[in-house]
């Protein structure tokens, strides 16, 4: 029989997270600081709106690009948070989570051999999605000394005449790093100069703890070369609803919608109705969750410093990225031993790119009591090694 598989797909490395997941599944008393989603349930009024839409019989496809009302709310949200004007029917559409939008944006924009700059450590899907789109992923290694903020020189260093797209993964998973307006201005200058496009993954945009998130699209001359990807998963604790969106230039949106239309049809209808409610009446919920994350964040960092674990202060998402380099183990060895000896699951930094070596990702999307219990295990482990 012939090989049924695509060489392109088989050449992609499986996610480094998968391996840990499999080990944890085998243990019955392991506890985890390894999740990448909120511990809160979706606020009840949002769930209720989803249920209500089902009761009313809203069980059909929506238009490919999503409900008009939802797209209008998304554009209003972009206006009130970033002062950006997008036209709901031309420059905005609804996706199955932010991750679909990442895939679509890459597929809609690259030609074979185009280079895509991907700063790492970052979310696991940019690199494989670039490969699947026949682009050449070019990795920028973010540095601990820069608090994992992207530096303009790093772009210049990796830029060739084939470079077309820069992925901006901020606020960042796994490091928790954020880019301030000043940081972004320097990036924007280089991007304009090199005539690049940006895919800005702002899924954690609502979760920042020192000043509001700034979208790079809001800087002068950047809106026309930026696709902003957002979603409901992190801000409204709606991961399971699979709801996200993209806003950007009409020309690019049209082509992204074309792929979306053939591959997906439309985002789940129930989720879209719930999403309207989230954007209309969810600000207070987001504010409360943000405050709670912030308190845990402070608690976690304080605990790290007391147990002698070195960590830069993350101001976004719900992750901390402490350095474990001084223990003389690789990230993976550290995480594996922590899991087998203390039954505590964390994710090695290398799951998010080679430049994550020497770090582990710790999520604080856990109740304070769970955090405390987990930190006791971590401290015991550090004393032992």
């Amino acid at each position, binding site marked *: 029989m012939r090989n049924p598989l695509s060489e392109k797909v088989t050449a992609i490395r499986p996610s480094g997270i998968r391996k840990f997941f499999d080990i944890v599944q085998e243990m019955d008393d392991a506890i985890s600081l*390894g*999740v*990448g989603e909120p511990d809160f349930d979706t606020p009840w009024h949002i769930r209720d709106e989803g249920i209500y839409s089902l009761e009313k019989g809203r069980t059909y496809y929506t238009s490919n690009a999503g409900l008009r009302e939802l797209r209008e709310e998304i554009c209003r949200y972009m206006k009130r948070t970033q002062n950006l004007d997008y036209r709901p029917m031309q420059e905005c559409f609804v996706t199955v989570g932010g991750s679909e939008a990442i895939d679509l944006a890459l597929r809609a924009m690259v030609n074979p051999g185009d280079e895509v700059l991907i700063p790492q450590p970052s979310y696991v899907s940019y690199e494989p999605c670039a490969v699947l789109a026949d682009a050449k992923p070019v990795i920028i290694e973010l540095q601990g000394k820069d608090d994992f903020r992207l530096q303009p020189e790093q772009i210049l260093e990796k830029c060739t005449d084939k470079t077309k797209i820069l992925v901006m993964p901020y606020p960042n998973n796994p490091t928790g790093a954020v880019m301030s307006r000043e940081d972004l201005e320097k990036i924007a200058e280089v991007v304009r100069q090199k005539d690049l496009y940006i895919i800005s993954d702002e899924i954690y945009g609502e979760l920042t703890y020192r000043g509001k998130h700034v979208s790079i699209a809001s800087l002068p001359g950047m809106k026309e070369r930026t696709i902003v990807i957002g979603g409901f998963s992190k801000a409204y604790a709606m991961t399971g609803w699979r709801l996200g969106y993209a806003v950007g230039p009409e020309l690019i949106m049209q082509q992204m919608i074309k792929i979306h239309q053939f591959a997906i049809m439309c985002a789940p209808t129930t989720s879209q109705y719930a999403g309207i409610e989230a954007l209309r009446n969810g600000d207070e919920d987001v504010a409360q969750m943000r405050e709670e994350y912030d308190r845990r964040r402070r608690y976690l960092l304080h605990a790290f410093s007391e147990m002698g674990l070195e960590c830069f202060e993350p101001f976004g998402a719900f992750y901390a990225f402490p350095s474990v380099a001084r223990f003389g183990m690789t990230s993976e060895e550290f995480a594996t031993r922590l899991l087998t000896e203390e039954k505590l699951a964390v994710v090695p930094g290398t799951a998010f790119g080679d430049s994550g070596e020497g770090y582990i990702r710790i999520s604080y999307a856990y109740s304070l009591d769970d955090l405390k219990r987990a930190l006791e295990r971590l401290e015991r482990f550090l004393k032992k090694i």
Partner: protein
Amino acid sequence: MSERELWGKLLPLIEKNSRMGVKELAVMLDVSETDIANAMTRMEEEGIICGYHTMIDWSKTDVEEVSALIEVRVTPQRGQGFDSIAERIYKYPEVTSVYLMSGGFDLMVILEGKTLQEVASFVSMKLSAMDSILSTATHFILKKYKDHGTILTKKYEDTREQVSP
């Protein structure tokens, strides 16, 4: 942060968990331990913090407990309104709460007794016998689903995948 702002941040936290330590609160709210300790003392003095209680679901213990809500209609007294009758009611130790209400009745009395008889005899012998009380309507609580913001019937379970990107 002003003193009042700090109070506003502290209260919702300790309302949910009165066992949070001064040190923990200081770290989480990014203020000094002295500030926390002072704020707590001040709020106790001002009667904003009125006590530190433990939430117990007695139905899970061997202790018998019956709770009832009693709607009470009263004739207000000249010069005192409802205050003096409310005081006469709340002095009974089995009475856990007394509220002045708008609407179809005047006082809501919440009562905890060991048995149904005990509650019944309180209502008929003591409460109804008071001069200015016009009528009472007693409602027994059959099951507590949620109390003071805490769901009693279900335990929180983390059903998330344990490791995810």
